């Protein structure tokens, strides 16, 4: 049986190359997409697996329930939380990680780096891969520093650097450390950045003052370790009471603290996919992989069953010669196994060839390592073989059930009966419905991504540069002021000013403060919280934000005094500007009615002098928080609006100015467009992956349709001949055949529309700023797939209708 199967498998390539290639390519494409998306899924779900302690470590998060503040879970806590926990639960093992921007000084050269201030037991807590030095003593005193391998190589050219001195600068000045250990670089599937580690000292804590132990504030990462999930759950259950005991009256006299503040534990393994939307996106890409594999298998069943019809005579002959049905089934299953194995091999080479492209398109670093991934690959092979064999059972049974006497007596190829015919049509329809759904989703994704990339954000995003260097703590106020003045003096610069929040990621959500009008409750659980932004003069002119009522800040007016300025008298009224939604949420019926009104921000009296349009500085996924602006240019980023020169020229000019004023801090800037792109990139990258997957699924669908068309036409050669004898024209025959093939495609479109609508609607649900689904994409998707179907089967129909009738009638 094995020999017959091998022979039939081999001959199908030499004798029916088209059929064999269609079958093999369809399967291989499907398996390749399945493997690639499985790799992607595995990559995204394997974050932080570099630490052997992964399953025991939990990240403590913070979720604040206050009106006006987004209650997203953030995986950060206040600085002193671990101290508070330790004093109440001394048995708990935990560490903190507080990232700090620092400057690295090598001779005359200065580089920007990020250093982590961590607890002494950090390396042993994570069982970090120490390459040089020892984990236990590496962070035993404040003069030690641990480097990652690539940082060691970057500055020393080697990893044998234990004992070497190294100078770092931060806001407390320059300090020389001794390298105590070198750890391996973390893999790409890690959200942690462990480049430079030093001991977290009371001096670091002192820098933050009251913020260090402010309940509900977020500053650094706190990790705790438990032996079992049950222990973690037990600890988690005690946290609300713990918060109530420790936080006391932080949130107001009549407020129960744990109602305002949650400190949920997130397993380290889940910390990458903490956002449910991201998790859903990863899951749905995994689903695309499974659906594509299913389509490929459907295709395989269709082609194999159709081909089975063509092999009916062979089956009948074999049966007549004494082949029992089980032996025939076995033969066809072995043929299927061989096809699947070959398809798997071809798919692996496809994956190998396409991974660089996919990694580039999706900003990923997926790899296929046969030795390390052997177990996983065998699992994937097992999945494919199992699914493939289930799929192959059907044609094997159809084939072995042919009645030899009937097959041999008829000149027509049996199709496996009416059921098989229906099944084939149904499967092809399902395949095409999936293709139409894919087209609808591709169109929807494209439109939404284009929308978020071009939508009116409430400000002009072009010709804007953010200078990050000014946020370095060692830059003095005088240097900042000098830089603004020098930048403004550049001919291409229209405006240069300070802002503590920038469009795109980087500045974080920033500070929120409760605000209430006279007569309103100052209770934190009820009062509105607004996102407070400290901005420099000309900020709204720089952003080109529309003024809705009142006026912008005017530094010349004494009453628009600097919030942090030397002239500010505690308790005196501060002029503020609010956003449209802040004015609305505060209860003003129109922007105009807010002008001149008094309110209390935290404890400070404020007067609203202007209302501006909402600006979307946050991700398109998130709602725009109500904003309040105060005049204060001492902190935050520098923003520059320019015109008339290229971005590169502007950066160059700003860099020159910077180096003259602050020579000991490296210049670092980014355009607003590029910074915003960090919001759009993941979505765009995932949609690339999705497009590749669906494009291949569509290709497989076409292969299936082609196979079905070729098969059905092949069975009808005699009928077509008869019709020609009776006078049918070629055009009439092409129409006849096309209608037969296209009817299932048309029905498939009708099934696909509601499915596509529901899926697209759900996907758009993750965006706060989403498009309304345009109706035209539904008929367009159907038309596109109809066109593809026409192109696929048109050739078959034309060829069949062109055959000479005499030849067709002689056909057996």
């Amino acid at each position: 049986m094995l020999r017959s199967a091998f022979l039939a498998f081999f001959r199908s390539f030499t004798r029916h190359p088209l059929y064999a290639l269609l079958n093999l390519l369809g399967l291989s494409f499907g398996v390749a997409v399945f493997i690639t998306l499985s790799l992607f899924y595995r990559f995204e779900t394997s974050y932080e697996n570099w630490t052997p302690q992964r399953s025991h470590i939990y990240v403590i998060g913070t979720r604040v329930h206050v009106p006006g503040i987004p209650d997203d879970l953030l995986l950060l806590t206040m600085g002193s939380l671990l101290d508070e926990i330790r004093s109440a639960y001394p048995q708990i093992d935990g560490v903190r990680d507080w990232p700090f921007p620092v400057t690295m000084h090598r001779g005359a050269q200065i580089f920007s780096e990020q250093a982590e201030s961590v607890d002494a037991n950090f390396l042993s807590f994570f069982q970090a891969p120490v390459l040089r030095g020892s984990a236990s003593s590496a962070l035993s005193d404040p003069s030690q520093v641990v480097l990652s391998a690539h940082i060691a190589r970057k500055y020393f050219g080697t990893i044998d650097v234990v004992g070497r001195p190294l100078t770092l600068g931060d806001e407390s000045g320059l300090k020389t450390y001794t390298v105590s250990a070198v750890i391996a670089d973390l893999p790409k599937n890690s959200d942690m950045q462990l480049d430079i580690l030093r001991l977290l000292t009371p001096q670091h804590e002192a820098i933050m003052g009251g913020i260090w132990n402010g309940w509900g504030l977020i500053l650094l990462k706190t990790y705790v370790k438990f032996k079992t999930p049950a222990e973690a759950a037990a600890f988690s259950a005690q946290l609300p009471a713990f918060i109530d005991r420790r936080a006391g009256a932080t949130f107001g006299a009549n407020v129960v603290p744990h109602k305002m503040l949650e400190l949920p534990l997130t397993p380290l393994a889940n910390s990458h996919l903490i956002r449910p939307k991201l998790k859903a996106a990863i899951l749905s890409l995994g689903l695309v992989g499974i659906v594509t594999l299913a389509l490929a298998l459907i295709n395989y069943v269709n082609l194999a069953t159709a081909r089975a019809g063509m092999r009916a005579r062979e089956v009948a002959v074999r049966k007549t010669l004494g082949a029992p049905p089980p032996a025939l089934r076995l033969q066809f299953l072995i043929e299927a196994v061989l096809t699947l194995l070959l398809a798997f091999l071809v798919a692996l080479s496809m994956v190998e060839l396409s991974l660089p492209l996919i990694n580039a398109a999706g900003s990923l670093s997926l790899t296929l390592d046969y030795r390390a991934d052997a177990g996983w690959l065998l699992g994937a092979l097992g999945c494919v073989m199992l699914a493939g064999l289930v799929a192959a059972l059907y044609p094997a049974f159809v084939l072995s059930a042919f009645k030899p006497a009937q097959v041999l007596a008829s000149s027509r190829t049996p199709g496996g009966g009416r059921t098989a015919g229906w099944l084939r049509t149904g499967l092809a329809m399902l395949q095409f419905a999936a293709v139409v759904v894919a087209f609808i989703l591709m169109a929807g994704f494209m439109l939404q991504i284009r929308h978020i990339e071009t939508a009116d954000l409430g400000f002009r995003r072009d010709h804007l540069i953010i200078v990050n260097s000014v946020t370095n703590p060692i830059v003095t106020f005088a240097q900042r002021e000098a830089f603004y003045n020098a930048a403004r003096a550049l001919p291409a610069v229209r405006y240069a000013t300070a802002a503590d929040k920038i469009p795109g990621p980087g500045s974080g959500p920033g500070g929120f403060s409760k605000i209430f009008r006279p007569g309103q409750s100052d209770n934190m659980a009820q009062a509105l919280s607004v996102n407070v932004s400290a901005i420099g003069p000309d900020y709204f002119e720089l952003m080109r934000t529309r003024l809705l009522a009142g006026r912008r800040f005017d530094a010349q007016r004494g009453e628009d005094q600097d919030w942090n300025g030397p002239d500010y008298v505690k308790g005196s009224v501060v002029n503020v500007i609010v956003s449209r939604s802040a004015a609305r949420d505060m209860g003003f019926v129109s922007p105009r009615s807010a002008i001149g009104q008094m309110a209390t921000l935290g404890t400070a009296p404020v007067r609203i002098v202007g209302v501006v349009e909402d600006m979307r500085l946050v991700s398109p996924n998130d709602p725009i928080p109500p904003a309040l602006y105060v005049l204060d240019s001492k902190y935050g980023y520098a923003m520059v609006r320019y015109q008339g020169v290229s971005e590169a020229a502007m950066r160059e000019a700003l860099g020159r100015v910077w180096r003259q004023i602050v020579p000991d801090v490296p210049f670092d800037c980014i355009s607003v467009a590029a910074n915003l792109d960090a919001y759009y990139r993941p979505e765009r990258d995932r949609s690339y992956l999705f497009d590749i997957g669906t494009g291949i699924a569509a290709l497989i669908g076409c292969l299936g349709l082609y196979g079905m068309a070729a098969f059905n036409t092949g069975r009808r050669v005699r009928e077509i001949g008869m019709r020609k004898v009776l006078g049918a024209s070629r055009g009439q025959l092409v129409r006849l055949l096309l209608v037969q093939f296209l009817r299932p495609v048309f029905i498939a479109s009708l099934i696909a529309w509601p499915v596509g609508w529901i899926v697209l609607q759900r996907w758009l649900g993750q965006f706060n700023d989403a498009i309304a689904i345009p109706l035209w994409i539904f008929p367009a998707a159907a038309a596109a797939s109809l066109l593809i179907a026409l192109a696929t089967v048109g050739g078959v129909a034309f060829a069949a209708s062109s055959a000479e009738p005499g030849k067709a009638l002689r056909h057996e």
Partner: protein
Amino acid sequence: MTDPLIDLRNITRLYRSDEIETAALHDVSMSVKRGEFVAVMGPSGCGKSTLLNIMGTIDRPTSGAYVFHGPDGQQDLARLSEVKLAQHRARHLGFIFQSFNLVDDLTIFENIELGLLYRSHRHGSRRKAVEAAMDRVGIAHRARHYPHQLSGGQQQRAAIARAIVGEPDLILADEPTGNLDTENGAQVMDILRGLNAAGATIVMVTHSPSHADQASRRIDMLDGQLAASVEQVL
């Protein structure tokens, strides 16, 4: 020529479609002895092929008994399972068709080998048997060709080789010369007669009176029943 090989007793074969019931065979009883060469004649639709299919166990009678006198004793084939019938065909029967029915994707050698594939033959002995069968019908030089590369006469000779390669007890031939010209038809009949002379039992359906005349017995059929059975002196 006295041992019976097969006995058909009161065989009836009905075909039912939605509303019509047709009797392809009606109460047919006959037997074939070892070494006989029986020709079955009759007009189209008289039940010749149905009779042959039932003898070949690729169709089952609606009622009646079909007894086969094999080396292991008598067996009623009408009651056997599909798998047992397949074994029976592999061991005892050889088929020759009007349209040859060679498998397109197999070479002539492999097609003939099919006749042994479903019996427990070792590969080496199979090879010898296939070569011997090809020699007997004179197509050894075409072993590596595919069926479509051969003429009709050559294809039919290959089909005969496939039928005889397993040295079956009974060869069933369904209009073996129907698709061949006179010369090739005569060659095929020569081969069949030679096989019969060497001891093979053959039942052949044919439309050709001259080919029927070369059999040792001739059966005429009409409307699903036996009309006459005539012993012929060759």
